[in-house]
């Protein structure tokens, strides 16, 4: 299967490094507006051709799959043209700037008989997958509630809040935080399903080019409830996922390898907290070592992206059901739309 990529920036590195390792996948072409960026990526990842004009690339390389890893506001046009060129599209989150664009994109994919897949990489990290496995096995009990809270300092001068060069994500409704809504929504979606209603609070604590730096939401979904949040001000950086089941509860930090379960123990009830504590301590110590070791090797917190791409290419090759289906993409984007701010920043 021939793969091509548009937009050789930071996240592209993870896509390219993973694609190099996938059997049956040939990295055929890469495109970036900067010739040096495209050529450097081609040299580094042994890609036979590079382009600065994506239309020329689609025409000459005829890829089976196009990865769109440019800034979000350009995704729609690039993805539409890639579908028209007969390719499946794997697009970085957020797939489009608006729900209307997303629906148009999905419709075009259906007409063209191609797939359009949005990258929900954190869903495929080890911890959420392990929790899903426990749920499927019946040990966990039905999920009643999920909490996802990302604490990430995005107010530093180098990234989203760069005072010299406005970050492209700032044009999204909600600003830089909107870039993270698909992570929150996709995790909520995989545990409690599509949303019915959502209430949101968008606030700003510190002066910065960002319209908002704090976000919270309570979501009522088909199979349970969710509390989603993003904090630019709480430190240290963490990506907390907590899933509440009828028999067990799970806690994970997706920036690390930490995953702990708390559930029934075969001990008298007064002793349960004692044994739970011992077990949790053991799991956290083990995770501390694993987190340290993974710093030396592999994709780190992007492990889910590699897993997602491996499964997606596997499914495309077998013509089986994709790990992220078109209805997943639509439902997650509807939830994202419900999470967006309705008012201008205070």
């Amino acid at each position, binding site marked *: 299967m021939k793969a091509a990529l548009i937009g050789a920036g930071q996240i592209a590195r993870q896509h390219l490094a993973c694609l190099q390792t996938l059997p049956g996948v040939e990295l055929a072409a890469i495109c970036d507006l900067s010739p040096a960026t495209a050529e*450097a990526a081609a040299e580094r990842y042994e890609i036979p051709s590079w382009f600065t004009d994506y239309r020329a690339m689609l025409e000459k390389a005829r890829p089976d799959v196009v990865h769109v890893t440019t800034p979000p506001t350009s995704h729609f046009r690039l993805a539409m043209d890639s579908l028209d060129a007969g390719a499946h599209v794997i697009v970085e989150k957020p797939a489009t700037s608006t729900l209307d664009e997303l629906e148009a994109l999905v419709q075009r994919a259906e007409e063209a008989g191609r797939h359009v897949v949005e990258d929900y990489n954190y869903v495929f990290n080890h911890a959420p997958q392990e929790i899903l496995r426990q749920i499927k096995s019946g040990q966990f009990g039905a999920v009643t509630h999920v909490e996802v809270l990302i604490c990430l300092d995005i107010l530093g001068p180098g990234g989203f809040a760069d005072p010299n060069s406005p970050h492209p994500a700032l044009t999204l409704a909600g600003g830089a935080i909107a870039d993270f809504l698909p992570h929150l929504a996709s995790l909520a979606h995989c545990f409690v399903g599509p949303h019915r209603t959502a209430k949101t609070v968008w606030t700003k604590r510190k002066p910065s080019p960002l319209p908002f730096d704090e976000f919270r939401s309570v979501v009522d979904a088909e199979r349970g409830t969710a509390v989603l949040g993003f904090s630019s001000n709480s430190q240290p950086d963490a990506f907390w996922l907590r899933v509440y089941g009828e028999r067990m509860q799970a806690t994970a930090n997706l920036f690390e390898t930490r995953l702990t379960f708390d559930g029934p123990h075969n001990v008298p009830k007064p002793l349960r907290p004692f044994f739970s504590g011992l077990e949790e301590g053991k799991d956290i110590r083990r995770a501390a070592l694993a987190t340290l070791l993974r710093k030396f090797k592999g994709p780190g917190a992007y492990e889910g992206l590699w897993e997602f791409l491996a499964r997606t290419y596997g499914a495309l090759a077998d013509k089986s059901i994709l790990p992220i289906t078109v209805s997943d993409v639509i439902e997650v984007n509807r939830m994202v739309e419900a999470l967006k701010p309705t008012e201008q920043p205070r």
Partner: protein
Amino acid sequence: MKALVTGANGFLGRHVVDALLARGIEVRAMVRPAARLDAFGWRSSVEIFRADLRTSRDLPHAFEGVDVLIHLAAVVSGGEDAQFAGTVAGTERLLDAMASSGCRRLVLCSSFSVYDYSSTRGTLNEGSPIHQSPDVYTRGGYTVAKWWQERVTRDFVEKHGWDLTVLRPGFIWGRDHGYLAALGQQIGRHHVVIGPLNRIPMTYVENCADVFALAAVDPRARGQTFNVVDGPGERIWKYLSDYMRGSDKPGWRLPIPYWLASTVVRLAFVTVFRRATKVPAILTPRKFEAMLKPLRFENRKLQKTLGWSPPFDYRQSLARTYDPAPQPAKAPASWSSGTAAST
């Protein structure tokens, strides 16, 4: 004569602006939109042009009336991709703008990091081998970005028939920039010094700036590449001791012979880290060499071609770096003449 200086408010840039003015060259200083300039005390004759090479659309205006571009801007912090985007794609955008102007001469600030230390023996000079693709991609973000910046610049120069001088400074030091990566590993106030008697390829910032100003005006610099070091370099142990004394940061120094540290790093790599993809630079044998390999350094080509010698010797440079009251920058006699030669 008018020079456009990118990165003009950086550590080197500030001094390059002064050095150009001292030679009677008009300066347009390109700084980022949010840069604060109040502390520099630049004369009103310095024209400020605010732009970010990554995104600004009016870069062609920066070249109006400019005879020479002195390109110092580079992104030296952040991740590998941020450095590449800022340094390399930024240079592409800048030189695209230059191509639409009448300016045909440029001086590029490159770096010692483009040299392949592993294949260099004895003395490192302008003839020493530089990195090759794809090996360069294993050498870290700063090296990749500076190597590509030089490559992109040479491509533009060839395409447009411009005059290029590439200057590759060693470690640039001076006031508030006394600590150098070549000094080993700092642990709190204490230092693990690897190869204490090795020499540092170093240039005092005002000396380095003088070379940039000279290269801008001297026709003998055209088409040339020069390493910029003040001389053979001080030994790490001595420079570190001057740094600790000068900056009043006393601490312990633990010397470790280069061969011993190198053996340990190689052993660790072969036994533990070979399969690891993300090892700290100092634990990768080739990066370790690039940081610390004992080589000799010289500025013979600068001396022979441009007749340059550093305006300030090591002792004077130390005084200008660490003395409490900075002396007003006294221009060497030749600067005021407005001619190219400095000796």
